[in-house]
Structures are given as C-alpha cells and as structure tokens.
C-alpha cells in the first residue's frame, strides 16, 4: 500500500485516496474549435508510461482535494506531491 504525502494533510495511506489518471492532460478550453485528433488525445489517448509519471489522486477519505503525485509506475517510488494549483517544474 502506497504512502502518499497529501500536501494538505500529510502522510496518508493509499486506501484514503482514489486514482485520477495522467495529470499532464489539459482540457481544451470551452467554446474553442477542437480537431477530432486533439479531442481524442484529450479523452482517450494516454501514454501508459513506464517510469516517472505525474498523476492525479483525490484524497477522497480526507480533505477531498485533488492532488498531483509524481510517481514511478514501475517501482512505485513517489518523488514529489503538489497541490492542484501548483505548477510542476520538470
């Protein structure tokens, strides 16, 4: 079970969180013309990386905040965690 540092609450076990997928995906703005390809990339196409991955988790049984977690998908190592509105420097 992962041990995740919620930026709002501190270290909490994984069973308090729910997974929310790739955090690098940006939703196209509202009322903007979007090509099929662009839209499909947003809705469906994911890289399924092996290695360092920035992903979303929601602290669902805690503060209910969505957070960003930088995690290695093959080793489960967690490098950093961020608040929803924090910019993530590469």
């Amino acid at each position, binding site marked *: *079970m*992962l*041990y995740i540092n919620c930026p709002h609450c501190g270290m909490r*076990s994984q069973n308090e969180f*729910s997974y*929310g997928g790739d955090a690098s995906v940006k*939703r*196209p703005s*509202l*009322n903007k013309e*979007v090509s099929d390809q662009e*839209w499909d990339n*947003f*809705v*469906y196409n994911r890289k399924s990386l092996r290695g360092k991955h920035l992903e*979303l988790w*929601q602290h*669902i049984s805690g503060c*209910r*905040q*969505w957070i960003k977690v930088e995690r290695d998908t093959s*080793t*489960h190592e*967690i490098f950093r965690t961020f608040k*929803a*509105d924090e910019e993530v420097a590469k």
Partner: protein
Amino acid sequence: MTQGFRIENGGLIDRNKKLSFKFNGKKYFGYEGDTLASALLANGVHLVGRSFKYHRPRGFFGAGVDEPYAVVQLYRNGETEPNIKATEQELFEGLEAKSVNCWPSVNFDIGAINNFLKIFLPAGFYYKTFMWPKSFWYRIYEPFIRKAAGLGVASIDHDKERYEHKYEYCDLLIAGSGPSGLAGAYAAAKNGAKVILAEDKPRFGGSLLTSDVNIGNQSGKDWAEGMITELKAMPNVVVKNRSQIFGYYDHNMLVMSEKVSDHLPKTKKYHPNKRLWYIRAKEVLISSGSIERPIVFGNNDTPGVMLSSAAKEYLKVYGVLVGRKPLVFTNNDSGYETAIEFKKHGVDPIILDTRKNPKSEIIDEAKNLGIHIKNSYVVAAAQGYKKVKSADIASISDDKKQLGKIENIQCDCICVSGFWTPTIHLASQSGNKTKFKEEIDAFVPGTSKQNETSLGAANGIFSLEETLKTSFKAGGELSKKITENENNVAIPNVVEKKSSQHDKFWCVPLPKGKNYKRFLDFQNDVAVSDIEIALREGYRSIEHVKRYTTLGMATDQGKTSNLNGLQLVSEIENKVVPAVGHTTFRPPYTPISIGAIVGREVGKHTKPTRKSPIHTWHEKNNAVFVDAGVWLRPRYYKRGNENLFEASKREAKNVRTNVGVCDVTTLGKIDVKGPDAAEFLNRVYTNAWLKLPVGKARYGVMLREDGIVMDDGTTTRISENHYHMTTTTAQAANVLSHLEYYLQLVWPELNVNVVSTTEQWAGAAIAGPKSRDLLQKLFPNSDVSNEGLPFMGYTEADLFGVKARIFRISFSGELAYEVNVVSDYGNFMWEKIIEIGEEFKIQPYGTEALSTLRIEMGHVAGSELDGRTIPYDTALEGLVSKKKDFIGKRSLQKSAFTAEDRQRIVGVVPIDKKTSIPEGSHLVKDAKAPLPNPKLGHISASCWSVEYDNPFSLAILKNGKNMIGEKLFAMSPLKNKIIPVEIVSSHYVDPKGERVRS
C-alpha cells in the same frame, strides 16, 4: 500410552500441565509448551502423512515454519482448518488432528501405488499425461487427481471465529527475536525509538534457545530472557510473540499475522482468533535468521530423516528424543551440536562428516565425549519404508564424486545438516536484488531498496560475535537518525565453540547400479531425476524449471528445497548459481488464514449498511428491503399473503388513483454555492442554467467527456447563489468527485463550493392525483395551488414547527411533490404524511412500484443510463443545448453518435399482452435465425403496466426512432423464452406529460 521418547528432565515445557490430544482418532498425552509435532514424537509417532504425488510415507523434517511434511487437518472447538503445520501448532487440551493426503488411511494408502508406477508421474506429468485424450479429462483424470491428491479440506461452514485488523506506525520494526533481533531492538529502544519486535514462535530468543553459547557470562538462553524482560518493561517497545511478519509491501508497509488464540482450546470471549497488523515502519530490521539445508541422498524422504537443528530443538526445547540410535550426517559444525546434545542425554550418536579434516572447539568437545566420528563419509541411502531402520553409508573421495564400499549400519533416525540458508524472503519482497555469497553457498540481501537492513544469519553472518556487534550498531545508528538520541550500549563478550566453516557439498552421488529417489522438494515430491528430465527436455529458465517440475511450489514454498534445486541446475548446466538465478519470493512468507486477511469484513460488514431515518417505520410496517448500493430501501410493503408482484401492483395502482408516499432519502444531494454557481452548472449540465430563477427546479443531464450520460437529476435554485443538486442514489459519490475535479483542476477560477448534503436531508415523494389535497393539509399556511406552486416550483414551508422544503417534481409521472426536512425530523415528517394522508387513502410504496411507475412513463433510470448511452439514446437530446459548451459536448459530434440508425429507447409490448419479458432479453428480427442471432437491442427494464394491465418494457434498440410499430422477438436463452413483441413509444402512459402539470 507413555511418552516413551520424552527424556526425564529438561526442555522448556511445563511438565505439571499434562494435556490429552487425538491424532487420527488415537489418544495421546503431551505437555503444555509442546507443539503437536513434539508431542507426537514424544509418543514415538513418526508417520504423519503421505506425500503429494507418490503418496510415500511422511514424517517430520523440521521443527518450525520450514516444515515440508507434517501438514495436518486440525479440529478445534467445533471448527476445522486444513494445512496446519504440526511443527507450528501448539498443543492444547483436547486438540484433534488428522493426516491429510492419505486415503483410506495413513498406514494403508491406495495412492502409494503411484510410487511403484513411477513412470506415471514424472516431471511435467500434469502437462503430458493428462493431455490426451481430451474426453478423459472430466471422467477419469480429474476425479482421480482430486481423490488421490490435494492437501486438507476447507470447511464449508461459516467460520465462527472473529479476526481483527490493526494499523500501527513505528520507528523500527524488527522481524525475529534471535540474537540479531534482540540486539537491534535493544539498541534502538535505548535511543528512545518506537520499536515493535515480532517473533513468530511462542518463545523469544530464536537460535539462542538451542545453541550452546555464552553471552555476557550467561547462557544464550538466559541472556535472551533478560533482554526480553528489559524490552517488555520499556514504554516505547511493543514485543509480540506468535506473530509472523509475512509480507513486505510498498513504502515500508509490512503485514504481520498475530495468532491470538490458536494455542488455546477455545478463543476467549471478546478476543479475536488472529489479528492482522498493517505496520508502517520508518526502518525495518530483518532478523529472520536462517533455515538449515538438507543434504540430498537416496530415500532422503523416509520418516526419521530430519534436519539436525530440528532434532536438537526437539531435545532442548521439548525434551524429546527423535531416536535412540541417531546418525548425524553433516558438512559443517552444526551437526556436532546435535550429536553432543544426544550424548549428554545418554544416547550414542554416530557423526558422518563429509569434511576430511575439520577443526574447531566443538569438534574437540565431541571427540572428548567419545562420540564416534567418521570423516569423509556420507549417507548414500536411508533404508526402511515407514521409518528409518538403517542407513547405507560409504566413504567419499576428496573430489566428492566417488563413493567407497557401501556399508549398512543400524540407526533409527538420520539428522542432516547441509549448512544454513539465510531467510531473505522479506528483503527480497521489499525489492532488494539479492546476491549470491560464495562462502556460504547461498543468496544474501544486496543493496537495500526500501528502508530495510538485514542482520545476522538473515544477512549471511553466522558468527555470533559478529552478529551481535553489527546488530547493536545497526539498531543504534538507525534509531539515532530518527530520535537524535545516542545511548551507546556495551557489547557483551561472546563464547562460541562452533566455526562457520563448511564443505561445499549438497548431493550424494548414486551408488553404482542403484536408482534411489533423491528428493529435493519433499512436499511436492520433486526428485533429482525430475530436474534432470526438465533440463533434458529443454527447460532452461529457473522459473520454467520450477513450474514444469513444481519444485518449491508447495505450501512450504521451497524453504528447504530451493537452493539445492539451484545447485543441481547449475551443476548440470555448467553454470554458477548466480547465473541460474533464483525464483522471486512473494508474500506471504508462510500460509496465512484467509480469515485473518478478510478480518471483520464478512457478510454485511463488507460494506457499511446505510439506512434512512425512516427505516424503523418501514420495518414496523412489513417492508421487504432491497439493497440499493449500500442503502437498504423498502422494495414493497407486504400485506397479508401478497407476493412482490401483487404488492407492487397494488402500491403503483394506488399512486395512479389516490396518493402514495415513497422514501427518497437515499437520493444523492449536493449543495452548490457561490457567485459562479450558475455558470458552473451551465458547464456541467447539457441544458441551459443561467436563467433559472430563484425558487425554481430544473431537470438536468450531465455527461462524461466521452459524451456518455453520467447522471441525471433535478437541481433547484434555493437562493441567488445557492443551488440544491440531486443525483441518483448510485452515482452520488462519483458526481461529487466529478464536480470537485472540475472546480479544483479545470476551472479553479470559478468561485463555487460543493458539499454533500445527502445525510442532512430526509426526503419523501408524495405522488398521485390527490397529492395536492394532502399537501394542503400538511401545510395549511402555504399556498400549494397550481398557481402558487407550479410544476418545477420550489417553496419553503412549515411542517408543524419543522422547516420543510417542498419541490414540485415528479419521477412517477403523476402530480407529485418531494418534501425534505432535516434528517432528525425525517420520521416525524413521514408519520405526519401517513397520518394526515389516511383520508386520501395514502399507501407507502417501495422501489418496485416506483420502477413500474417510471417505466410505463418512459422515464429513464440506471438501467438505461448504463454507461453506454448518449442523450439521444435515452430520448434526452431535447435537453442538449446547441448554443453553449459543456462537459462532453464535443464528443457528441462523433460519427457513431450521429448515425442515422443510432440506438434509441423504445417501448416493448408482448403481442399476447400476457407474457412478461425478462430484463436483459435480446431483441431479434428472426427468432429462428442461426446463432449467433444478430442482436438489434436489449430489454433494459420491465414492469406490469398498472395503467393498461399488461406487461410493458423499455428497450434500447438500434434505429429505434424508425422502429415504432415493428414486430420483433425478445429472446432470453437464460429463461428459455422467445416472445413475439411489438415496438411502441417509450412514453406508454400520458405521453404529453399533462398529469405532472395538472
């Protein structure tokens, strides 16, 4: 029966507490502190089971967790548990156990015929023998295997024991209470660290309980006792026996199974049987010790052949002689300790040492005691069927390839020591890439991956002095990092007679002309010849060899067999062991009860049950409940002998003619507040929300980004910046997360807050032509006329002193209202409605009637919004705004979603107007078409229309728009039904929706 093999004095058992027990129906006696194994051995019982494949007789091989043979079916307090190791099960008064894997009995076993038909079951026999002909599988092979093989039998009764889970956090977790664990724990505890020390056995001390050493001028055992006493007294230390740490998971989380009650005849009141600990440790000290390796020789599975350390433990801990004519076969000093122990109790052992000229203090001691030692000697084969009777021994050449002349000597047990294998399972589970250590012929932990440090024998260190030195140091340094305290602990002086020098020898060559079975894996009956076959047939990867031969795949997970198997593969393949590599260790280290893993989450406790505040009333009024997610909802209220069909028909009919009331507390409710709330709803829902006035409700549909309908419900504008959203019961939690996602991540600029209010409000839906009359009596001071409270209107009112919210919304399609009060007054509201509604012939109605009412109205619910439908499919496209953008809108342009013959909701009526159509039936054009019959659609919901008194269903049908009037067939292979049907509009009753506005 006397305990003929129990020595007069000594051991750590309590001789004042005599216990009786039964094995295979026969009564025996033992003492408190015995294991089932030691008590049986004290009674001279060596035959305890049959092997898995050849059904060869099986005795005891070890004295603990590594035991491959002595697996029994245990009976305790009216319950039975399979696959219990007799070497781990503590004796209690009235214990009963039976052998497994024998039929009809342990002494006469029909399966043993396999032993004489060896060609029948060589390596890979599962894959080869049972392949052809296919038709033999069910009739012959499978029943045969099931009867002849298999270990114990799981009980089919409900387990009456209770199991608990516990979460714990600590600075240092120490796995094992031998010398390294005690030293590490002590040093850490002295630095003020929060320490948990776990020992899987009932007694603390590990190897110190049986080894002949001195620490700090006292015996190893006394030193261990002193340490434990001191540790137990420290407030920052938790010391646990009978507690096996069996899994090392991510981020330094380890799981431990504590056997709270297994050693007692009966679990004490309020105690669990086992307690599962989830421990998050900052640092882990792995002090799990080592397991003695066997040396492989002919018939080495005969009862009476056992590990020399086990023989020593039975003697020193339990006061039991495993034989009176022991032969000790060793390649290192450990065998000498066992032999000396025998000698001290008046038994004359013979030592066969593979080494030519070994030297150490302990060897000198053995010589001085007059023990007969034969150097450069081996056991070629054990003789005897159900028990060792003699041994064929021979000298061995210096290159260990040639045997001398075979001699047969009498003996009744053979105690084997092939040196020690570090228990690296936990380190390996943590992700540590282990490495091969040439000097000890075994794998040891490599570089730590998580915060784990292996100590002592678990780290391949076999000198006690070195072990204590490094373990005190590790415990001290790791704890200092955490607590910033430093209290140096003096390292005691150590006297050890043993050297850790050993002979690199693990398998005795076959004597000329002999074809003895030489076993590697004793539980799965994998012999040297099986590995040879696998390699001859081209298997190379150790993982493949393992699976083909089943080496190390039994319940002992190869604790005594893995390394010898690797040695054999490397020898045949001419590779070094590290190049062969070992198979991966996975949790659990040892079998763990399913009950312990499940814990309290049994039956109704798997998920919490949610009940509405009106639940008790429902119960008192004969409600029959149904699970709606985690909620319990009344399905119908039974009157007299009514069944579900009759009751729900009556309830639905009463809504259509008079008035009914339904508990709708379970609906999800979310408060949406803030100056940008309207804009937010406008983006979340497909329809327009910017112009909804205060005091009005609106029905809304929300999509996922892929265009599929996520949920529907009504949302009401309570005040300028305050909306009350409702969701379906099932989607309440998902919708809240969905809203939070957009507010926190996508549109953080919107000033809106959302919070669940599901539990704050109790709700009652009042529906039927007489609902307004009832409402007027409930709220005499409010204007609830059609003008005062029009369809989709909202008002706040006073319900006999309780503030209530009234929404004029309808799911049943009748004139209807929903009244909400704060939950604490839910029952009060309900009783008032029933009381005052009496004159209007009110009846409560359950979910079954509710379904009937919505189905015949063509209102969609979860069975249509099933995660595969877009608004058009459920006839909700009228709610999809063309002007504004919203979540999922772009996806609706996809060609599949705009196809002319797109699926769409329709109504379905059986042509005979009698036969109900099973939900899930497929709609097909031609009932006689060859299979697979092309499916045009499926029945999503069925009811008995109370309006027309005939069956009616909803379906999602391809090209549904143009199918009205068509005749099709509804096929249900499950119910074996083919029903001719006609497609009609989904709005079967009141298609214009006049009633809700009346």
